[in-house]
């Protein structure tokens, strides 16, 4: 691990009472203690994941020994999960629904945010507050009416039922609007003066400058959709259409005491998101930190 300490700020001046050198020494010691504590906690935080991996690599019979040491490491549990469950179908279902969700959300939210940021129209403030009200409504209180809605049009057990209710995300509109408001108006006004339509300005001037916000919204929507349990659990009862969380939740009982198999399926279920995390770490962190969520 390449952790080095921040060099103490250089400064020639001397403080009243305590010398600069004493302060530096104190700060250095303090930083060292900080690092030690932090590493200890970080390792503690990784233990559950490491333990799951460790268990997944054991034969089922050996999981009853609560030791880290694996006598006969095997990929058997992973192989069985891939063969005996519908996990490959769940991957496909999760990927399709999460990707559709992310694409639709980015498109619809950015279009709406563009109108709210750049166009003048009557009731603009009313529309803005109307959209903002959506942030207040907890999605969970909508499950019953949404379920009846989809039941009555016969869309249960389809991906539409999973995707559509998750598309209109008030927070996404808010994030895009914040970002657009921060872009200099001269840019798109110049294009307008040159005769470009709003649609053209949105597509060729605004959106290309919006990559960071777009990435953040897309990744968050994708991850959220991928992980969503309650709603897909209600609308997807056909095992062939289940998403990963629904599949894992339903299959859990059937593994019984085969802990290695259970852990292998958990790890396989988490794998794509670990990849997303490693690939998009920066965007995820900036997305949380920089897109208006900070308050």
């Amino acid at each position: 691990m390449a952790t080095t300490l921040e060099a103490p700020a250089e400064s020639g001046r001397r403080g009243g009472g305590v010398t600069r050198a004493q302060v530096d020494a104190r700060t250095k010691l303090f930083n060292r203690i900080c690092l030690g504590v932090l590493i200890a906690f970080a390792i503690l935080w990784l233990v559950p994941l490491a333990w799951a991996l460790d268990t997944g690599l054991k034969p089922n019979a050996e999981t009853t020994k609560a030791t880290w040491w694996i006598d006969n490491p095997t990929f058997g549990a992973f192989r069985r999960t891939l063969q005996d469950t519908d996990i490959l179908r769940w991957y496909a279902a999760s990927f399709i629904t999460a990707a559709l969700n992310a694409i639709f959300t980015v498109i619809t939210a950015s279009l709406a945010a563009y109108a709210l940021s750049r166009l003048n129209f009557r009731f603009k403030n009313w529309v803005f507050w109307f959209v903002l009200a959506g942030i207040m409504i907890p999605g969970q209180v909508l499950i019953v009416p949404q379920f009846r809605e989809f039941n009555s049009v016969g869309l249960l057990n389809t991906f539409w039922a999973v995707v559509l209710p998750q598309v209109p995300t008030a927070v996404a509109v808010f994030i895009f609007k914040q970002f657009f408001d921060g872009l200099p108006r001269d840019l798109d006004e110049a294009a307008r003066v040159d005769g470009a339509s709003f649609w053209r300005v949105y597509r060729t001037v605004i959106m290309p400058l919006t990559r960071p916000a777009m990435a953040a919204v897309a990744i968050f929507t994708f991850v959220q959709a991928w992980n969503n349990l309650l709603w897909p659990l209600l609308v997807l009862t056909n095992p062939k259409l289940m998403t990963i969380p629904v599949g894992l939740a339903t299959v859990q009982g059937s593994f019984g005491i085969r802990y290695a198999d259970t852990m292998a399926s958990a790890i396989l279920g988490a794998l794509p998101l670990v990849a997303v995390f490693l690939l998009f770490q920066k965007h995820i962190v900036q997305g949380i930190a920089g897109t208006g969520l900070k308050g």
Partner: protein
Amino acid sequence: MSTQTHAPATTGRAAPSRRTHALNDHGRPAAAFLAPFVILYVLFIIGPAIYGLVMSFFNTSLVKPGLSSWAGLGNYSEALQSKDFWSSLWHTVWFTILTTPPLIVLGFVFALLADRVARGRWFFRLAFFAPFILPSAVISLIWIWIYTPGLGILETALGKIGIGSPNWLGDIHWAMPSLAITTVWWTLGFNFILYLAGLQDINPELYEASAIDGAGPWQQIRSITIPLLARTTTLVAVLQVIASLKVFDQMYIMTAGGPNFSTRSVLEYVYDEGFTNFRVGYASAVSMLFFVVVLAVSAVWFAIVRTQEKEA
């Protein structure tokens, strides 16, 4: 629906400005840009919200079409008199009390420590933040295994240092704290990142100036860092409280509300009443009561933010 913003640009009163309104009013394009979002929003968020409100006044059943008979405030008074409703509300509040303080304090402390480390931040982000993006189903499976009596790593580890373990998920008194421990481990990363971002906004010159004046690290944290992070803390706190009140997944998979309903949250109660007992009218009333609680929390937040902004 509010897509009708393309109403002809006429002003009610005798036109106050000479400039043609048409030049400045983008009603038609605005309607086109807003339409995709607003239509989905009305169909799947606002519509169901109103429908839910309506249903809460009827004896609606999941297995019969239509709203069924009028119940008036019957569902509400039943919920308010139901022991199950109040106990599920209490469990939800108890869970919120157990999770919120550690999630705020640890998020702050870990961010503070990580902020002093110049390199290797990716490692801490990985350790603290990665669990946050994993599906609740995965988290639950892993922690059920960790808590398993006799075999789980927690019992083994505590046994090695001579501490006996309760039956984590099986004991009425321990089930909720166990769920809280899992949740703290799982979701801490989000607060960690919010605090880390807040810390990076603090001007380093403030620290340098105070160091020149002889302030040690503790003093700096007390008199610079904590006050300047007040707004971040308010945000973290309210997001955390709302998230904790909405708990469902962990409980549904790890304990299914048990043992003996000791971990049944409000949303699990809604789920049980609506989808197991088919009483969706009643479940809607419970949802609405829960919505009022969340609204109250949000209102308190707005009030606090307002005062903070006035002070700033």
